[in-house]
């Protein structure tokens, strides 16, 4: 495909799109699909056909419309009007209402804070186009950034732009992306590889799934730009097998891009070739760790190894490898199109851009949100999330999954950025944000995460393999009201030991949920231990 052809497709599709009086978007993401949004789309198609409105109305099957708990979600145009909980039986009423207000039972205000307080960069166009159709993606600007990078910029200029943007890795650790790219670009050895981490293993997180399902071409485009910048010709996307729809859409998108010549040899007529293969994960949380992931792509048990050497120098098959997360790659296209300086105006001094969170748990509006870095947790939970349901009281916000911590009420006003979250004992993580109310016992929460880490520990290093087991035993004992006061000292010792001596991030961060709950909710531990003493005392007297 030539740059001119790309522009022509975009213009043709835009004209087609503009000719419709009404564009009805039906969410086709896993969440809404599970409440049968596909049947809703079919019913709407039928209704349009029956009334012979084909030239005026168009039913689009689109990516996530954010409000997952209200699904199946339907929107009009670019989301000015929203409908919730639409069933196939509502199709006729919905079509009737086009051009006027939605039926009251389906109406979902599009101007509520849940939508208006978001800031969209990665998900800019999500929910307004069909992700399974490459021409639809091109209509909303896909591959324009790749065209610009390949035809107008040198690899060094691309890396400079990414460095200027201040983008940091969205997988959780927040390593500066520009620095990573320039390290791989400078590394000696060939071939080089570009790898995308789509093994979203954090329980309570589904941002990457949503990006892969809702805008797969943006991920592919980001990877291609990265490949151009670092000098790679081959890429891998490592996707969880538990996300069949994401796997299907990514595969479909790669095939379409290959056929269109947007992947393959001499992309845009330049001396740049790149292709991508999908590799399926098989349900091992530790494969989110970079060396484990690369080992797994090569068909082995996903066991991490000590670093250095870092993957930038010694990665997949022993070659220099660039490894970024799905959301990181999805940030690349807008940075190249609009410039790193533009991106750097969004967010805080050290954390630029936006972050997508999966807002779930005990909060009124659950779903997928993209917010500007620096927004406070209070704004997310109480403005966007609409507060705690059933009149209960907020207790803690959990970020970063099993590697993160529980943030209590007194820190609700800290800004959401990498440093601030770390300063209160949690981490940004990949984007799971789980709200807990006063019905959750924090010792049980700590035990829940330790159970997770224990069963996900790969077993290679002793501190993690044995340490997580022992900590889980202690937490279980305390929760079962059989704990002793000395257990708390022992827990803290084990936390220090795991942090200091584990081989990889899984073991090093596994103590975080325990440490943060011990710090902010020690009284809950003490209450359970006191209850244990009471029972024991009663037994002695009996």
């Amino acid at each position, binding site marked *: 495909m030539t740059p001119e052809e790309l522009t022509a497709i975009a213009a043709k599709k835009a004209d087609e799109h503009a000719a419709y009086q009404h564009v009805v978007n039906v969410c086709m993401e*896993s*969440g809404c699909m*599970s409440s049968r949004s596909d049947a809703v789309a079919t019913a709407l198609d039928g209704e349009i056909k029956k009334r012979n409105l084909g030239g005026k109305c168009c039913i689009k099957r689109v990516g996530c419309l954010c409000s*997952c708990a209200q699904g199946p979600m339907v929107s009009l145009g670019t989301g000015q009007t929203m409908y919730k909980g639409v069933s196939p039986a509502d199709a006729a009423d919905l079509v009737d209402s086009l051009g006027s207000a939605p039926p009251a039972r389906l109406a979902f205000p599009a101007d509520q804070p849940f939508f208006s307080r978001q800031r969209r960069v990665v998900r800019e166009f999500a929910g307004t186009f069909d992700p399974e159709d490459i021409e639809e993606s091109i209509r909303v600007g896909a591959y324009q950034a790749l065209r610009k990078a390949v035809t107008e910029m040198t690899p060094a200029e691309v890396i400079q732009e990414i460095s200027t943007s201040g983008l940091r890795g969205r997988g959780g650790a927040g390593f500066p992306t520009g620095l990573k790219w320039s390290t791989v670009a400078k590394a000696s050895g060939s071939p080089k590889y570009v790898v995308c981490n789509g093994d979203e293993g954090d329980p*309570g997180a589904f941002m990457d799934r949503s990006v892969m399902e809702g805008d797969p071409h943006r991920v592919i485009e980001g990877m291609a730009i990265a490949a151009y910048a670092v000098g790679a010709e081959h890429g891998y996307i490592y996707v969880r097998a538990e996300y069949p729809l994401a796997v299907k859409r990514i595969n479909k998108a790669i095939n379409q891009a290959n056929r269109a010549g947007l992947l393959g040899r001499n992309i845009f007529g330049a001396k740049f070739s790149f292709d991508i293969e999908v590799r399926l994960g*098989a349900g091992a949380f530790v494969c989110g760790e970079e060396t484990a992931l690369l080992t797994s792509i090569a*068909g082995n*048990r996903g066991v991490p190894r000590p670093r250095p050497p870092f993957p930038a120098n010694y990665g997949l098959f022993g070659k220099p490898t660039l490894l970024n997360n799905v959301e990181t790659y999805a940030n690349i296209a807008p940075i190249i199109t609009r410039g790193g300086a533009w991106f750097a105006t969004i967010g805080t001094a050290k954390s630029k851009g936006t972050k997508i969170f999966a807002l*779930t748990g005990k909060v009124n509006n659950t779903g997928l949100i993209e917010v500007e870095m620096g927004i406070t947790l209070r704004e997310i939970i109480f403005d966007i999330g609409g507060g705690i349901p059933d009149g209960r009281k907020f207790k803690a916000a959990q970020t970063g999954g099993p590697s993160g911590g529980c943030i209590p009420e007194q820190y609700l006003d800290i800004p959401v950025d990498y440093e601030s979250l770390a300063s209160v004992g949690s981490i940004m993580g990949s984007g799971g944000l789980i709200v807990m109310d006063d019905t959750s016992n924090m010792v049980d929460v700590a035990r829940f*995460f330790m159970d997770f880490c224990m069963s996900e520990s790969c077993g290679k290093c002793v501190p993690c393999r044995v340490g997580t087991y022992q900590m889980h035993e202690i937490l279980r004992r305390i929760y079962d009201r059989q704990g002793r006061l000395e257990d708390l000292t022992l827990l803290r010792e084990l936390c220090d030991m795991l942090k200091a001596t584990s081989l990889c991030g899984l073991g090093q961060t596994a103590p975080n949920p325990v440490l943060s709950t011990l710090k902010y909710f020690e009284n809950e531990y003490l209450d359970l231990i006191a209850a244990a003493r009471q029972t024991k005392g009663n037994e002695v007297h009996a």
Partner: protein
Amino acid sequence: MTALATPKPTLKAPSDDKRWRIVDATMRRHGYDPHALIESLHSVQQVFGFLDEPAMRYVAASLKVPLSKVFGVATFYHYFTLKPQGKHACVVCLGTACYIKGSGAILKDVSERHGILDGQTTPDGELSLLSARCIGACGLAPAVVLDGEVIGKASVDQVSLRLERILQS
């Protein structure tokens, strides 16, 4: 791509089952590269539902990797199962959001009602009870997957009712 790999003399599949052709096609597509071990096991599990010893031996011989490594990989990853699954599957999500909203109670109820623990199948081979670390349907927590269909905002009663209906049909 590994399209240029030399075709290998075909090993005899463990049985005449035509489904082996799908597995063969996967291995051929990857040029019988040992790196494609996980992909090959995915293919076996997809068509047969689980990985048994003859299957693992066949994949090991085809890709020229030691059987010990195939067994190691098959048991390392949670997604692979070495036991046949029941006719029906009930997967309870134990992701954080689902757990906070009470999926633990659903798991316990199904477990007690049918006398099987997480990961087990009823003796009559009708029902397998499984738990998932997170199926990514957190917005619909707690979520349960019955025979591939996601039930969002599930309750103990609702799941037990649906299960009874499925088992009776």
